[in-house]
C-alpha cells in the first residue's frame, strides 16, 4: 500500500476506454500544479494509457497500485 495522500480522487471504475483517462485529464485540467490525483480504474487499457499520457504531458506517475478488482494511479500535476 502506498502512503501517498491524494488531493483528489477520480473513480472511473466501470467506465469503458477511454473514459478513465479522459476523467483523469479532466481532473488534472482543473488541478493546481503539484496536486496529486488518484485515478481508480478497472479497465486494463489504463495500465498503458495513463503512463503514456502522463509522460507526454510531463506529469509524474508517482505510483500504480494493482488491486484485485481495479488499479489505482497516483499522478502529480507538473
Amino acid at each position, binding site marked *: 500500500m502506498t502512503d501517498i495522500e491524494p488531493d483528489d480522487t477520480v473513480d472511473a471504475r*466501470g467506465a469503458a476506454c*477511454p473514459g478513465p483517462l479522459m476523467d483523469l485529464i479532466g481532473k488534472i485540467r482543473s488541478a493546481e500544479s503539484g496536486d496529486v490525483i488518484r485515478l481508480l480504474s478497472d479497465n486494463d487499457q489504463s495500465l498503458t494509457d495513463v503512463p503514456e499520457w502522463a509522460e507526454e504531458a*510531463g506529469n509524474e506517475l508517482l505510483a500504480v497500485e494493482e488491486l484485485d478488482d481495479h488499479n489505482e494511479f497516483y499522478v502529480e500535476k507538473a
Partner: protein
Amino acid sequence: MTEHVVIVGGGTGGTVLANDLADRLEPELDAGDVRVTLVNDDPDHVYKPVWLYVPFGQREPDDGRRPLDDLVDDAIDLRIDRVSDIDTEAQRLQFHGSAPPVSYDYLVLATGSTLEPDQIPGLTEGGHNYYSESGATDLRDELLEFTEGDLVLSVIGTPHMCPAAPLEFVFMADDWLRERGLREDVDITYTYPIQRVHGNPHIAEWARPIMEERDIQVETFFNAKSVDPDAETITSMEGTELDYDLLVTIPPHGGIDLIEEAGLGDDGWVDVDKHTLEAEAADNVYALGDTADTGVPNAGSVAHYQAGVVGQRLASEIRGRPATATYDGKTLCFIETGMDAASFVEFDYENPPSPAPPSEKLHWSKLAYNESYWLTARGLL
C-alpha cells in the same frame, strides 16, 4: 389513481419515448389510468446531425427543426417550460416562474448535452464549431472565405455528441477543398485527446490510414489548454502549440446542472445501470441518450434504442409486471468519408465495430436516413 410519467427533454430520446409510450400504453392513456407529459424548453424538436452539412452549404439549420407539436402524439401532454428543480425524494419537479410543482410516478431524464466553450480560455473568440445552429452557419461563412492556410480541427471535449463527426468533418473538408481546387493550399490538422484518432480503437485503426492517404496531419495526446485568437494559436496541456488560420473545435460538453444538484451524477450525466438505464441514486428515475452515463457514444441511434427499452420497462412497471427489457449497448452510425462516400458501423457492449468499406451507396443511405428521421421521431421507424 392515474400514474404520471414525466419525460424531461424533447430531443431524439425524449420524443421517441413519448411516442413509444403513446402507442404502447394506448389503452391506459385512453382510460385515464396513465398520463404522460413531455417537457421541453423549446417548442421545436432539433435534429442535430443536419449541422454537419451546413458548413458545406448542403443543408440549412431549419432543415433540422420541426415543431414538437407536429411530431408528438396527441395523447401526450406537451409542456414547453423549463424545470428548475428535481426532488427525487418527493418525486416532484419545480418549474421556472410561478407554475405549481408537478408530481411524478416515473421520471425520465433526456436532457442531452450542452456546449461549454468557456472552459477553454480564448475558445469562444477564436474557435468555430458545427455543434450549434449559429456555429454551423458562422463556420459556413468562414469556409466560403477560406482559400489557403492551416485548418485545424481539434476535439477538445469528450464525451461529445456524435463521436464520428470530427472524422467526418475532416474527411468532408478534404474532399470539398479538393473539388474546389484549393486543397494544395490548405493544410488540415486533426487533434485528439488520447493516443489515437478516435475513442474506439477499432474505428481509430480504420480511420488513421485514410487520414494518411488524404494528407490529413494528426496530433494525438492533444488536450487544448487555451486559444490565443490574436496570435491564432491553440496550445495543449501537453505543451504543443499549433498555428491556425481557421480553427474548428468540438467544444467541451456537459449535461445540465439540475442533475448534479439532484445528486444523480457528476457533470450533468446521470449514473445509471447501463442495462436497465435506471438511475443509481433514486427510485423511479430513468435516463437515456447523452444524459445516461453508460459509456456508449452520445449518438441519436443510442437514444433511439434506449427509448424503446425504457418504454418497455415503464409499460411493464405500470402494468405491475417485472420489467425485463434491457439495453445491450447497440449503436449504429454512418460515417461520411467525403462528400460522396460513407462507411457504416454497428456495435454493442460485447461486439466491437467493424467499419464497412466506404461507398456511395452508404453515403446515400445516410442522407436518406436523415430525411426519414422524422419518422423515427414520430415513433414509426
